[in-house]
């Protein structure tokens, strides 16, 4: 019988680095966009677009790594997620959280890159007439909606991360490891080891 305290690797170092750099850039992006709306006045735009470019680059690296070095199927919703059996590497809730972040971040990146053209940055000439005012409005609306979804997701994500019974996942995102006992609480260890 396997030792309950045996440590299993859950996240490689590069994936933990990706997670925490994403967390810092998203915090910067939300702070620099929402604090001025809440009445805190400062020169927010420089930090905002630089953090946005950093987020874009690390998301591109994450997509390449997920597709070619990891098992992207382990993050997809499957019929097995709705059965009573233990989860694979990720639980249904974790997959839904990832899906929410995927939507929020990809919309923010695509619309943010378009908006750089409207506002101008050091490496791109400002051209507010590239699109009609209505089109800019629609792009801004999508960018705003991604920010609102991010506010919701940050609250829920941080809540579940610090919940005592879910603390093993937070420890795994710091150290990279989870014990077999902690994993077995919600996962089928055999499914995890098969890469599901």
């Amino acid at each position, binding site marked *: 019988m396997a030792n309950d305290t045996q440590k299993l690797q859950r996240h490689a170092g590069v994936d933990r680095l990706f997670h925490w750099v994403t967390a810092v850039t998203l915090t910067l992006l939300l702070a620099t966009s929402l604090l001025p709306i809440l009445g805190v006045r400062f020169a927010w735009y420089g930090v905002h677009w630089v953090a946005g470019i950093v987020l874009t680059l690390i998301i591109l690296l994450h997509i390449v790594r997920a597709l070619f070095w990891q098992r992207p199927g382990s993050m997809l919703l499957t019929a097995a997620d709705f059965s009573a059996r233990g989860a694979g590497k990720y639980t249904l809730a974790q997959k839904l959280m990832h899906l929410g972040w995927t939507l929020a971040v990809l919309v923010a990146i695509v619309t943010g890159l378009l908006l750089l053209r409207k506002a101008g940055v050091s490496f791109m000439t400002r051209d507010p007439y590239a699109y009609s005012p209505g089109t800019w409005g629609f792009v801004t609306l999508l960018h705003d909606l991604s920010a609102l979804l991010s506010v919701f997701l940050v*609250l829920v994500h941080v809540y579940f991360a610090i919940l005592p019974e879910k603390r093993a996942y937070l420890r795994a995102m710091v150290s990279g490891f989870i014990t077999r006992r902690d994993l077995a609480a919600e996962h089928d260890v055999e499914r995890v080891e098969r890469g599901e």
Partner: protein
Amino acid sequence: MNLLRFGHDAYGERVLNGVAWELLLPVAFWAGVAVIVGHLIYRALRRGKSGRTHGQ
């Protein structure tokens, strides 16, 4: 109260500017808080139920 912000272009036409932050930012925040409170209630009820089951 509007869900969206509107302005006017150079010709005076009404154009979309984005979401109405004063309405939707609190909605996003309180929706997150509602999920947290809902889960805390569910968690407390489930723990109470399993506590009674173990106590029998």
